[in-house]
């Protein structure tokens, strides 16, 4: 790492600190508000009482067993997807990339649908989803490595698209064969994403693997930023681009597969949120990563709160993220590429 690259990036960080602090505060306030909102009516003092264990009875059941795990899960999933999306976008130097680009979501979906199709317990469905996501991306990387002499990025993306299509076909086949009364609705619901069933046990299950993926990204964020310059420039600055790229893919995939396992396929977050972050703090990955994660956490918190309060029934997350995310994305496209350096 050269002093030049650091020197140009570090002053920016100082200016961004107040912004990051402000966003974190907003997120914390949002989380507290979300805890106080729900079909089971609780005032803010009651929520605080329940949180400190002084309320007892049903209020504590609602807050500790239902609402808190869900609020935390929404923030975790949103932050993870946005961070993975930002990583992939820097990696491929393309703003249209989302965490699904290498097939992690399609692979995870296929895994989960297999689990539902076999009527397995929830933990096995989650495990299948996690492994399915990892397997799909591993296969993509393996194939891309085997194909030599062509543009590596192009091969990766194309193989990812092919893998996604294959996994999608297999998922559709299982849907055709599934029992329409007890399996098909479960499959459909899972493919649209939901946190309706999240327990604190689920959170404990995915937290380690999300952290395992997130920590290298945070530690290496300065180096990863250099990837956006292109391989040759990165090499000139002393970064082993291919190795670093593989590491970023592994980390982002681990993060995505983990959260998809508990939340199902939640689209759009990984695509749209990094754009918003970029508009706020510019393209430098070092600040883009934490800001994306915070905004992503807030966005999914908002979406999930809507999902559980808008109607008597739960509205799948995928529907809401698309309804809110798609118009915004079109707006970004219409504005041209100003947000992308």
């Amino acid at each position, binding site marked *: 790492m050269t002093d030049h690259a650091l020197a140009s990036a570090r002053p920016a960080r100082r200016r961004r600190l107040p912004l990051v602090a402000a966003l974190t505060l907003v997120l914390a306030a949002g989380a507290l508000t979300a805890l106080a909102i*729900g*079909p*089971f*009516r609780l005032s803010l003092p009651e929520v605080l009482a329940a949180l400190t264990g002084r309320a007892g009875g*049903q209020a504590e*059941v*609602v807050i500790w*067993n*239902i*609402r808190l795990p869900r609020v935390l899960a929404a923030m975790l999933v949103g932050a993870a997807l946005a961070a993975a999306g930002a990583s992939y976008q820097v990696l491929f130097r393309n703003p249209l990339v989302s965490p699904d680009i290498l097939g992690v979501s399609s692979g995870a979906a296929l895994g989960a649908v297999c689990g*539902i199709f076999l*009527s*397995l*317990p*929830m*933990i*096995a*469905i989650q495990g299948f989803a996690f492994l399915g996501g990892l397997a799909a991306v591993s296969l993509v990387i393996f194939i891309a490595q085997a194909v030599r002499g062509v543009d590596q990025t192009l091969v990766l993306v194309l193989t990812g698209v092919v893998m996604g299509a294959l996994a999608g076909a297999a998922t559709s086949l299982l849907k*055709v*064969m*599934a*029992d*329409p*009364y*007890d*399996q*098909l*609705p*479960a499959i459909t*619901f899972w493919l649209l994403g*939901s946190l*309706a*069933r999240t*327990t604190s046990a689920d959170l404990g299950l995915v937290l380690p693997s999300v952290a395992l993926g997130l920590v290298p990204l945070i530690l290496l964020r300065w180096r990863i930023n250099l990837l956006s310059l292109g391989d040759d420039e990165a090499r000139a600055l002393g970064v082993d681009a291919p190795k670093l790229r593989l590491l970023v893919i592994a980390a982002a995939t681990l993060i995505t597969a983990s959260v998809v396992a508990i939340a199902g396929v939640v689209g759009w977050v990984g695509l749209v949120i990094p754009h918003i972050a970029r508009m706020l703090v510019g393209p430098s990955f070092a600040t883009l990563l934490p800001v994306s994660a915070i905004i992503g956490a807030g966005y999914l918190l908002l979406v999930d709160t809507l999902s*559980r309060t808008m109607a*008597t*029934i*739960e509205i799948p997350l995928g529907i809401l993220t698309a309804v809110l995310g798609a118009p915004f994305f079109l707006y970004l496209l219409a504005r041209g590429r100003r947000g992308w350096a």
Partner: protein
Amino acid sequence: MIRSLFTVALIALLAQSAAAQSPRIVTDSAGRQVELPERIETVFAAGPPAAILLYVMAPDRMLGWPRANRPDEREFLAQPYADLPELGTLTDQGGEANLERVVALEPNLILDFGSVRDTYVDLANRVQAQTGIPYVLIDGRFENTPTALRLLGEILGIPERGETLAADAEATFARIDALLADIPEAYRPRAYLARRPDGLESGVVGSINTEILERAGGINVLGRSAAARGLVQVSFEALLAADPDVIVTWDRQFHESHRDDPLWSRMRAVQEGNVHLSPVLPFGWIDRPPSLNRIIGLDWMATVFFPDRYQIDLRERTRDFYRLWYHIDLSEDQLARLLP
């Protein structure tokens, strides 16, 4: 003296309230041991089949329906239960009820009726752990109907009601068995259950949606399939080749249009006028949902399959069934609309 009397009274009082609160342990169809309160006043039905089971057993314990009833359905349900609110479902069937809403309703029990496979056992355990509300799973296979009714009767503390309905279900099964005992395989109709307006969706042998065909003595023309176990798309060509004797459907649109359809009108069953529309109010008679609403459908279908041999007054049976199971007295007009 007074003090010791007081103590005795206090102990007696405590003992009494402890007896009233003493939990019962019930084993559900999945083998789960569930601790239940002595009295169960309110029950949350996790899905449509459970809602029907609860409605026939004890409508006064209902909190609502998975989805609000349509006006035409309400007419065939007893008041005030017909107008109970929509609560959604817990079993992933199209829309989920919010767990908080379930807790806010404070049901004494959550009831699910249907598959007792691992996914559902797991769901039951999770919801029970999260909400602290006992969650009971009852096996919803058609053949299990009498057992299911008795089990719920025991759970709700109304064993007589469970016994009455179980006896009626058993009598229906026995009636069909007696009828079929005399009818060799060769004389049984080869039947097809048409779903959707185009009539080209059905189930293979083993599918829960078409199992009533076989239970009523028909032979499913689609036979078994190695690949599918649920609903399947049927090609018209294959159906023409299979050449069913009887076609049954609950889809009014299909029933109205099939005669004028250039393809369907070529089917032998259509030309012979052997296409039968099953009643669907307040719940489907042969499917939709595949729950114990099919008990009356069994009588209907046996009449369709064996009009000369099945000795039953279907109108009288329908009237009795709706009174016993659905808590309503059918008017002549209603009966005429169910069985034209």
